[in-house]
């Protein structure tokens, strides 16, 4: 009887086994590219060709770039030689959101964007001038610092990044603004904000907004063509429940990047705000990563970010109302000319 019943299920079992074995075959999953230098180069080039969002904005002929660099790549290249060729190719993009990393052993990182002098801003210099100081996060690397400058009623607020979720900043800003409400003016230091979440930037800017205003529109690649984009997404700055509408100076410099820049865009819609310092970095778009057959990882811009008038500042940065550029030597000698200029703006009001 048992044998008889097995006939009923035998065919099912056999089918299952065959299907199981065939599923082991990678034809069910598709082929993987080879991990050779030429294959990795071609994947790198085509991933940018199909996904990079700023070719038209940068007026770059990516096919011509392929013709220039493909002949330099052979399967005999060492890892370091291949990395050099790829880096040279990505340099054509001059995009701060484009980078390439090669894992250990022999870790290397290449950043395509422009380099600016470091040491043009020191939070410690400013913290020494505050009579009262509130810190959130580790004291040596705070996420947020706020307080009042000695012998004045000018407030100071520093944000290190916008990398947390919007709800985090909503809570922290509510506390900070409740404290800073008693000040007459405020310096918002955005020079440390290298990036984060654009939604968090929107939330923070809302604490200085009087009216709901369109400040940015974004769109993202939705196909392989260089002009294949989805619909525009519109970003408005919305007044928070508790706002600071007295005069504000926002300090920016080349360290203000990505979400720091979309925050700056939002703050530009607030009439009580003046901008002092240097241009922002000039890299706005989100930059998801992809990987190459040899295991290297590359990041690229996949969005098109514009201000409310449709102007893109990718590769340019946002210009302040008053251009003041600190040098590393000045900062090393205890001088922050940008914050001095901010005082000038506020005390001149």
């Amino acid at each position, binding site marked *: *009887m*048992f044998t008889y*019943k097995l006939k*009923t*299920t035998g065919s*099912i*079992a056999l*089918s*299952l086994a065959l*299907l*199981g074995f065939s*599923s082991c075959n*990678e034809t*069910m*999953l*598709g082929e*993987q*590219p080879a*991990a050779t230098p030429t294959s990795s180069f071609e*994947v790198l080039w085509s991933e940018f060709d199909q*996904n990079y*969002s700023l070719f038209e904005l940068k007026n770059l002929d990516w096919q011509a770039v392929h013709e220039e660099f493909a002949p330099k790549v052979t399967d005999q290249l060492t890892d370091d030689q291949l990395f050099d060729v790829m880096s040279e190719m990505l340099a054509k993009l001059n995009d701060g959101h484009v980078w390439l*990393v090669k*894992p*250990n052993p022999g*870790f*290397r*990182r290449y950043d395509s964007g422009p380099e600016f002098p470091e040491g043009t801003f020191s939070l410690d210099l400013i913290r020494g001038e505050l009579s009262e100081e509130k810190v959130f996060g580790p004291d040596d690397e705070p996420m947020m610092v706020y307080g009042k400058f000695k012998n004045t009623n000018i407030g100071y607020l520093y944000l290190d990044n916008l990398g947390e979720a919007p709800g985090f900043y909503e809570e922290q800003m509510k506390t900070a603004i409740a404290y800073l409400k008693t000040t007459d003016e405020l310096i918002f230091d955005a020079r440390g904000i290298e990036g984060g*979440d*654009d*939604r968090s930037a*929107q939330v923070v800017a809302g604490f200085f907004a009087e009216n709901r205003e369109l400040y940015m529109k*974004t769109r*993202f*690649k*939705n*196909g392989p063509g260089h002009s294949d984009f*989805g619909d525009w*997404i*519109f*970003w*408005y700055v*919305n007044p928070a429940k508790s706002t600071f509408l007295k005069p504000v100076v926002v300090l920016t410099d080349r360290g203000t990047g990505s979400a720091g820049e979309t925050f700056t865009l939002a703050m530009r819609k607030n009439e009580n705000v003046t901008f002092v310092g240097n241009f922002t970095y000039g890299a706005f778009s*989100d930059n*998801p*990563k*992809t*990987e*190459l*057959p040899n*295991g290297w*990882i590359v*990041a690229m811009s*996949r*969005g098109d970010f514009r201000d409310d008038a449709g102007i893109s500042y990718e590769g340019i940065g946002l210009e302040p109302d008053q251009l003041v550029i600190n040098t590393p030597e000045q900062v090393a000698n205890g001088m922050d000319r940008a914050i001095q200029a901010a005082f000038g703006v506020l005390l001149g009001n």
Partner: protein
Amino acid sequence: MKTTLKLVAGLCFALAIASARAQDSQEKPGAEFRISYLRGTQKLHDLQASPMIYYTTYNGLNLDYKRITEKNRWEFGLEAKTGNMIAPELGEREFQIEEGGDSFVLIPSQYFGEIRAGYQRQVSSKSKSQGYLGGMIRDEFYYADGLAMNTWSMNSLEFAARYSHFVELGKKHRIEGDVILPLVAFTARMPYSNVVSQPEKSQAKAFLEESEFASIGTYQHPEIQLSYRYHLAHRSGLEFRYSLDWLHYSEPRSIKKSNHEIALAWVYFFQFAHH
């Protein structure tokens, strides 16, 4: 891993012995509750995330409840699984954020699972075998952080046809074969840009709002299961199950996935009634 298996097996036998004291009866159970330990391998080739194939060897837990009458079967179930994702062609890779910085090994963890509900009606009945045909609604969700240093996610609400066939092999043995074939799916994947960023919306909401309907022409996800059940006692049984599924969806870029899975389950029978 071995400890977990021993624990599950030990639990099953302890419960089986306890329930073996229950009075024997000619009544048939009107409901059953099944708890399963799952162990499987997922192979994923998602061109939206990486040109490389990732393997995830996972562990998981499945719970389900079935209501059974003479002609009808209702099922409600859920399962959760987790495992680390490795691309065999790439191996373990150690990166740094910047040169001279701290290093980390890039091994993303994947979390996935499903919730399902189904109904089947008896379509054939012989002395020792029955066939049931029906449908099920199933939501499958997947999440991994760090796949090529990105967030990877997928959610798929499927409406599937299901056929089950049971063969009784004496009083204590039963073999079941299942075929599940989704006909329509409402699927959310990472968009072409791999960016989920919308003002004033959570990322989960923005992600799910991009869901699209797909029919069997573009979305294929057949699954087959084969299980053997041994009736330990009046109220309990042990089950060993093997399942295999394969997924293909082409939007916005091709994803292909297969799962091989085995399950060891303890089944509790209750709500006995004369059939």
